[in-house]
């Protein structure tokens, strides 16, 4: 274990300090999202404080909300919605986008043109607006949110994967493989994908950040996760009445979002060179 760790370091898989901080933030929130019901100090729906918008105290570490519920517990549980929905949406959008992108690059021709034009058009609808329109059309629920977010960020993933795959597609080993008579599926899975997986994973991380921001924005407008459940954006919305008093209940959910998105950004910007770019 120790030896393999050192040989990994030597091979260029070394994290620097800033990257490590980012990794800790992301891993921390992942652990919180998984274990939230076990670590919350108070049940999330229960009114535990006689005062509303209570200050930070030994009893309520991050204060209490507009009904006197414990904010720390609600943020910890909210992590499940924010991280879970965003993760699911980014998985769907990236797998669909990357698959389509690689297919378009390998097959080319009218399929490529048609797909590119259509997805570019989809990309030129402002993302928040798209969310608003869909929620207006079919109402908001968690499956609807996941699908909408996935659809909004598929074109970007497609564009990115297609640009990378077009370059790989002109390489000799792909030509050889094609001359050997391999089918499209084999080309995509065995020749293209292994060569673009590093940058695609980094792109997935960035897209995750965009999705977290959009989901929080929609929830803040009251169009995302619906009560009694609450993600971080919805927590800010519920407690916005405490803003004129500078209540901690407004700021801490925002800080939670910022720590997650900045953590992911730091992690990606400082990924070991080997993962970010395989060509070097």
């Amino acid at each position, binding site marked *: 274990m120790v030896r393999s760790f050192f040989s990994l370091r030597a091979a260029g898989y070394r994290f620097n300090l800033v990257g490590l901080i980012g990794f800790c933030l992301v891993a921390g929130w992942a652990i919180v999202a998984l274990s939230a019901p076990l670590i919350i100090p108070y049940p999330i729906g229960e009114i535990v404080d006689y005062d509303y918008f209570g200050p930070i105290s030994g009893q309520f570490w991050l204060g209490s909300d507009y009904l006197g519920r414990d904010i720390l517990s609600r943020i910890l549980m909210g992590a499940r919605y924010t991280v879970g929905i965003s993760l699911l949406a980014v998985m769907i959008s990236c797998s669909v986008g990357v698959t389509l992108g690689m297919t378009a690059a390998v097959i080319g021709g009218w399929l490529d043109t048609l797909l590119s*034009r259509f997805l570019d058009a989809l990309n030129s609808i402002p993302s928040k607006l798209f969310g*608003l329109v*869909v929620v207006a059309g079919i109402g908001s629920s968690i499956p609807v949110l996941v699908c909408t977010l996935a659809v909004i960020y598929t074109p970007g993933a497609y564009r990115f994967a297609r640009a990378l795959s077009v370059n790989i597609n002109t390489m000799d080993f792909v030509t050889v493989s094609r001359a050997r008579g391999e089918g499209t599926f084999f080309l995509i899975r065995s020749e293209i994908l292994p060569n673009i997986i590093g940058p695609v994973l980094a792109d997935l991380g960035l897209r995750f950040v965009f999705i977290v*921001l959009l989901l929080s924005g929609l929830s803040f407008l009251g*169009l995302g996760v619906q009560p009694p459940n609450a993600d971080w954006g919805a927590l800010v919305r519920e407690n916005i009445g405490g803003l004129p008093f500078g209540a901690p209940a407004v700021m801490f959910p925002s800080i939670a979002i*910022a720590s997650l998105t900045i953590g992911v950004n730091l992690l990606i910007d400082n990924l070991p060179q080997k993962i970010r770019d395989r060509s070097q």
Partner: protein
Amino acid sequence: MNRHVLNLVLARLMIAVITLLIVSFTVFAATVLLPGDVVEVLLGQAATPEAVAGLRAAMHLDDPAIWRFIQWLGGIFTGDFGISYANNMPVADLIGPRLANSLKLAGITTLVSVPVALTLGITAAMWRGSWFDRSVTILSIGIVSVPEFMVATSAVLVFAVYLKWLPALSFANEIHTFGQLLRVYAMPVITLSFVISAQMIRMTRAAVIDTLNTPYVEMALLKGASRKRLVLKHALPNALGPIVNAVALSLSYLLGGVIIVETIFNYPGVAKLMVDAVSTRDLPLIQTCAMLFCIVYLFLITTADIIAILSNPRLR
């Protein structure tokens, strides 16, 4: 301008028109074709089968979808936006005054943020690697990676709660003096400016640094030109195209920001109207607002692309 450039620009405009068609179809499809019956929502408690059937016929909901789409699109382009479900007023009358408000907000924000952002972006590129550059970069990355409402709530906390310079979340309609006007617009404009300046600074800085890395700038450096002369005389004229491109692209972030800012500060603009329309499921109003936003957005990114084409000396 020669033939080649003209062709490129025309091709870009064609793409914009095709995109607009696909976008309008998507907006229509998302609001109308998806499940969820508008009529039952509209009638609420009174949704007897006869009433539902009657209203469906009156609203032409039983016609084929593609026919309704064509009629709707024709209406949009001839200025007939339909009647609002919620209060039976023509959509155009509802949007008109709100649009003026939104444009005012966007205009003031642009006037404030463009000079500030360009100055910061260019100076950061000039002194690349200095503490000034680093703090500007870190601040702008920070603002880009937090949600807009956090920028807004932080601005309220700083300027209204701690410094007590400005009112918190209220939007007064009675404006009598210039001082009141300033106080009312200050908070939304500050928030929006932060959001779009962050984008603009990053893009401007990248554009200038890109130009500074070219061989002819290096030549000027070797010749002994000062840093100021290097940036202002040699690099900036060539970076102008990419910078204007960056400005147009950053202004398209206004659209996302304005939705949050108008909601949080209760500003009577189009975005607030649309968010309210979503909660009442007022579809004609939502469709028109959505198309309005998409057209503005498409206009901005198309302009950005055309400027990029026109400013590229290799194409001229």
